[in-house]
């Protein structure tokens, strides 16, 4: 496992992260989703050792965070944060020169390629970069040392679809050798539809769902039925439902089981439809269909 986090807890006066488990195998992309304030950034800061947990264990590349391993682990991680903390009054060139001295594996040629591809003017002050270019620059810095793990905290938030597409394309290229892993936190779930293998859904500091994306797609369905049919089914098959006159629409997270029970009771094939990650998130977090 590249990331193995168990029972992570972190308490703040107005927020608490409780018993968060996250596992990410080598060569896969894990999407961390959830509404704003769900605990995504806190989880990522814990995984990056930017803040320490109150309880729980974290292993990255099989190593625990401690004074001895800190440098070694971070040399193998590329990080792009939500706010891209840079010294805004310094130039792009100065910033890259400052960053690269901490990475023995820094690939200057690859970095220059990325900067040219992104059309970033290295003489510019970082503070003068547009939001899109700031993210591109952060991504170039994060990728230039060829990290084994890329941790991205809402990097596409507030960006236009063209830049988001470009970033997703680069991420797809990054993992194409099958040896690199990505942890991608976002609330723009359509980005994850394209690249994620695993999904972890956080809400109010707790993990509501953690599974392979394909399993979620095959087992989480929106099903339509008559009200009387719905009333004959066990309620624990559903995480959300809505009844309008005689029609009922519900969300099940164990579609195979639902189908069996439904067919036994009604003798009919269920009318089922796939759901987007947005709809899944809404059903889990708010209980709404």
């Amino acid at each position, binding site marked *: 496992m590249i990331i193995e986090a168990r029972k992570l807890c972190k308490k703040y006066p107005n927020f608490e992260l409780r018993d968060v488990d996250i596992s990410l195998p080598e060569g896969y992309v894990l999407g961390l989703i959830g509404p704003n304030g769900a605990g995504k950034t806190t989880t990522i800061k814990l995984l*990056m*050792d*930017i803040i320490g947990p109150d309880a729980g264990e974290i292993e990255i590349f099989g190593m625990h965070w401690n*004074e001895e391993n*800190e*440098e*070694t*682990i*971070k*040399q193998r991680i590329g*990080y792009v*944060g939500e*706010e891209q*903390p*840079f*010294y*805004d*009054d*310094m130039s792009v060139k100065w910033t890259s020169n*400052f*960053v690269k*001295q*901490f*990475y023995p594996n820094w690939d200057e040629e690859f970095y220059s390629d990325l900067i040219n591809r992104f059309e970033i003017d290295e003489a510019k002050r970082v503070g003068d970069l547009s939001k899109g270019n700031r993210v591109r620059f952060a991504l170039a810095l994060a990728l230039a040392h060829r990290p084994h793990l890329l941790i991205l905290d809402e990097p596409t938030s507030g960006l236009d679809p063209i830049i988001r597409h470009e970033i997703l394309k680069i991420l797809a290229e990054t993992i194409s050798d099958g040896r690199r892993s990505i942890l991608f936190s976002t609330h723009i779930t359509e980005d994850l539809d394209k690249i994620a293998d695993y999904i972890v859904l956080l809400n109010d500091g707790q993990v509501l769902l953690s599974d392979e994306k394909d399993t979620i797609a095959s087992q989480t369905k929106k099903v339509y039925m008559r009200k009387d049919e719905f009333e004959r089914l066990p309620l624990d098959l559903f995480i959300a439902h809505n009844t309008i006159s005689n029609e009922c629409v519900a969300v099940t997270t164990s579609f195979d089981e639902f189908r069996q029970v439904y067919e036994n009771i009604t003798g009919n094939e269920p009318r089922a439809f796939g759901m987007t990650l947005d709809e899944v998130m809404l059903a889990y977090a708010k209980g709404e269909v």
Partner: protein
Amino acid sequence: MLSLVYKDFYQTRKVLIFCLVIWAVFLGIGMINGAEGGASLVYSFGIIMVNTVLTRILYNEDRYQGTYFMKTLPIKSSLIVTSKFVGGFILVAGSSLMTCLAASIICRMGLHGLTSKDVATATLMSFAFTLVFCGVFLRLYFAYGYAKVAQYMVLATIGIVIIVSVIISTLKELSTAMTLTAIMNQPYWIAIFPIIGIIVYIECWRSALRRFK
């Protein structure tokens, strides 16, 4: 480590140049003004420089989330703290050297009744005070952040400038007294101030390390 220290000084290069100008102005006043206070002004330079530069360094870190940025890079947490204390020490040593240089020039010119011993004692005292000030500033910064600490340290700077001035005036008045001269003739007396300063500074550094982790 040195790259982190260099980063801080590079980012504050304009403030450092400004401090050189202040130094020249203080020296000028010390050389021209025959009145009392000329020497005090020169001895106050250290604390003013350290406060100005340190405030700017920590302001940069606070404004641009520098500590957060560095924590995303492969830099040991202890190094982030230690680099600030090393930078602080260099700053204090540099400002003390400049203070000593200015005081020596004034002493050579025979102004303000300064003797070489006065220069050495006051410089080392200024070094010790400034070092303690710098250590406490950094310790509080790592505990409470820039915003809370900066306002208190401005008040502390003013307080220390007044204390240093009073001590120097007192020393000057007593320098003719046999007792004090005898004490000050002992080499350990001159060394005791910087030793205390260094001990306090190291303790602040160790405490900041524990707190930061």
